Every structure is written in structure tokens, then in C-alpha cells.
């Protein structure tokens, strides 16, 4: 059992090192990522007009509205902050091509549809995910539990339904969490027992019960 686990770790490390050595066109993918985001969203107020792709040079995407890069002069996206821009559309799947992204803030827009079931494959290294104040519907994907680097997870003020996946309560870096003001139901899983999970984190979900809210009947 132990040996197979050790073998798994070595195997993944080998894969990781080999991939690290191989040629990849990472920064081109960041350009593709931003292009895809712009194309997939309706930008009624034309805030994304500064996102120009005709003459891209090293570091030019770093000056785009809402884009923060890892380094000046290198097209590698660290954070995207597009809050309160009147953007309409579904969750931009093109984010998967921003392979070094850690912070995503799409709050206070008019995004709809469901949060992708495979979100942990799209934003693998997310440390902060803010999708609050949109029109997202459907269930909270349980794969969020695989986003092990999440410090901030804000899904409040949407139309999310169903139960809260229990594994999400085990994310050990989580500092800020909110699913308030949705249409979630069922018992809050017992895994949500650390002090960061307050009444406010779950408030205004009429069908939700259990600690820290009132007991289920």
C-alpha cells in the first residue's frame, strides 16, 4: 500500500520533471486564453476594447484592463479582475489556457449557466475564485475540492441549487468562503466546522440547515 503510494509520487514527479523539460508554447496560450474570454463574453460597455490582439509583443497583454502578469515584459497571466463590467455570458472555459493563473475575479457581472463540473481542471492553481453576484445556476461542482490552493472562494449572490459538496469543507488553505444568497438546500456538511465558516457564509439559502445555521428539522 505504502510502496504503491511512493511509486505514484515518484511517477508523477517524473512526469512533472519531463514535462518541465519539454518545449511548450505557454505564453502563446495565455494570448489564446484572453482572446477566447473576450470572444465568449458580451461586453456591452466595451470595457474590453483595450484587449487588442493585432500586434502582440512580449508583455503587451500585461497592460490589458483587469490583467495582472507574473512579470513585466512576459505574457503570463497571474490574475484576472473583471468585476462589475456588465459582462454577459457563460463561465469562460478559455481560462484553461491561462496555465499560470492564480486569481480570478468575475464578480458583479451578468454571467449565467452553470459553473463547469471540471472547474479544477480549468483553473488548476486558483488561489482566489470570486464568482459572486452573477446569475450562475446549477450545482456547486464537487471538483472545487480539488482546487487545493484556494484561499478565497466566493460564490454568494447567485442562483445555485442543490447540496453543498462536503469535500469542499476540507480545503485547508481556505480563509474566506461564502455561498450566501443562493438557493442551496439540505444539511451543511460537517466538514464545514472551522471558524472561517460563519452564519454569514451560508445565510439566505432558505432550504439550507445545520451548523452554523439552525438545526435541520
Amino acid at each position, binding site marked *: 500500500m*505504502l510502496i504503491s*503510494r*511512493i511509486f*505514484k*509520487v*515518484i511517477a*508523477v*514527479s*517524473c*512526469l*512533472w*520533471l*519531463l*514535462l*518541465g*523539460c*519539454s*518545449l*511548450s*508554447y*505557454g*505564453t502563446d*496560450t*495565455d494570448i489564446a486564453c484572453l482572446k477566447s474570454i473576450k470572444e465568449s463574453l458580451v461586453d456591452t460597455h466595451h470595457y474590453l476594447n483595450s484587449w487588442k490582439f493585432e500586434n502582440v509583443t*512580449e508583455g503587451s497583454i500585461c497592460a490589458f484592463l483587469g490583467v495582472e502578469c*507574473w*512579470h*513585466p*515584459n*512576459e505574457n*503570463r497571466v*497571474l490574475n484576472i479582475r473583471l468585476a462589475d463590467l456588465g459582462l454577459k455570458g457563460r463561465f469562460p472555459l478559455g481560462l484553461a489556457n491561462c*496555465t*499560470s493563473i*492564480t486569481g480570478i475575479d468575475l464578480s458583479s457581472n451578468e454571467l449565467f449557466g452553470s459553473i463547469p463540473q471540471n472547474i479544477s481542471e480549468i483553473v*488548476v*492553481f486558483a*488561489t482566489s475564485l470570486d464568482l459572486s453576484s452573477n446569475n450562475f445556476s446549477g450545482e456547486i461542482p464537487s471538483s472545487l475540492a*480539488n482546487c*487545493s*490552493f484556494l*484561499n478565497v472562494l466566493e460564490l454568494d449572490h447567485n442562483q445555485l441549487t442543490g447540496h453543498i459538496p462536503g469535500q469542499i469543507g476540507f480545503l485547508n*488553505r481556505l*480563509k474566506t468562503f461564502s455561498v450566501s444568497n443562493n438557493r442551496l438546500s439540505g444539511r451543511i456538511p460537517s466538514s464545514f466546522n472551522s471558524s472561517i465558516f460563519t452564519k454569514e457564509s451560508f445565510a439566505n439559502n432558505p432550504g439550507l440547515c445545520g451548523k452554523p445555521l439552525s438545526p435541520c428539522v
Partner: protein
Amino acid sequence: MEREAGVSLTAQWMILVVFILLFSRISANMEGDALRNLRVNLQDPNNVLQSWDPTLVNPCTWIHVTCNIDNSVVRVDLGNAALSGQLVPQVGQLKNLQYLELYGNNISGPIPSDLGNLKNLVSLDLFLNSFSGPIPDTLGKLTKLRFLRLNNNRLSGSIPMSLTKITALQVLDLSNNHLTGPVPDNGSFSLFTPISFVNNLGLCGPVTGKPCPGSPPFAPPPPYIPPSTNSYNVGKAENCQDIGGRKHPN
């Protein structure tokens, strides 16, 4: 009696004024001296430091140097300037320095521990150089530091735990070095993912996928494929050769 008192009061004021003038000249010169020292220890084939005239009263008119309203240096911007040589410890005397931008050069030698004296530093960018030796643990004293980018050098030794106490830290990049030992994930390091540590063969701990010697194995994190651009290829090749010859732990 009164006249004597009057004369000595004037004399006192004059001494005070002279002292203030002298002091301000000295401190401005101290910053100019520190930068002059920096220049002397760098090779500058493109003459980017040509305007650095030490006979001026302060360095505030020098190109690539920015001062505040009190004529104290707040920025040194020498990124991508083809500089080589070493970074002198006297840079630690620029007490109001906020931005030290020396990236994309060929500066070698150690990172001076005196940089820990730069109490107002917000950005330390030494990436894409040839710095060697350890990351000084004195950098943990830089409480206002937001950007610490030391990637793509030849830094060795372990990551100082003191860095986890810097609550202002937002962007950390230690990738592409020769660092060893455990990667913290507490304090400010809770924000940092494998991306910040990739291509350092000796690092261990949950963030890296390699258990530290003596610890139990754990579930590996997702693999990170770093992007490859021309400017990064030199460092990459070294690491690939390292991989070829290296034995795996356990």
C-alpha cells in the same frame, strides 16, 4: 548681560542651521555614494549609467534613479540593461527605496543580506540574472514587500522561513534556481502554488510533490507545465542535464 545672551542665541541658531544643512548634504551624499559604489562594481557596456555623476549634490537627476519630494531615492530601474558584475551591500543604505528593479541582466555573486535594511521596499526584482548563494533570511524584515521575484538565477540553500511572516507579499517567484529543502505553505506562503517553485530540483514538501526526507508520502499536487520562451532556455538546459544525472529519493 542681555547682549551676551542675545549673541549666544544667534550663534546657537546659526550652528543649528549649519548643522541641518550639513546633515542633509551628508545624507543625500550617502545615497549618492551608495549608488556610486553600485556603479563601480558593475560592468556597463551600454553606458546606461553614464548620467550617474557623483559630483552632483544628490543622485536625483540621474537617469534610472527616482527620488521622493525630500530628494531621497525611492526607485532604481535598471531592468534589461546588459549589466554584469556584483550587487554591493551599500544598496542597503537607501532607506526610502521602494522599487529595486535589476532584472534581466547578468549580475552575479550573492544577494547582499544588507538588503534586509530596506524597510520601505515594495518590490525586489532580481530575476533573470546569475545570482548565487542563499536567499538571505534578513529579507524577512521587509514587512512592506509585495513583489519578490528571484526566479531564473543560481540561488542555492533553503527558502528562509522568515519570508512567511511578510503579510504584504502578493507575488513570489523562486522558480528556476538550485534551491533545496522544504517549501513552507503557512503564513503568506498559503497564497503560493507550485508555479512559484518549479524547476528547483532539491525542493521538497507537499507543494512540490516530493516528500521531505523523513516525512510520510502524500497525494501529489497537479503537475505544472512551465511555459518556455527563448530568454528562459539557458537556465532550462542546465536543469534538464541535472535531471538526467540525478537519483530519485526513496
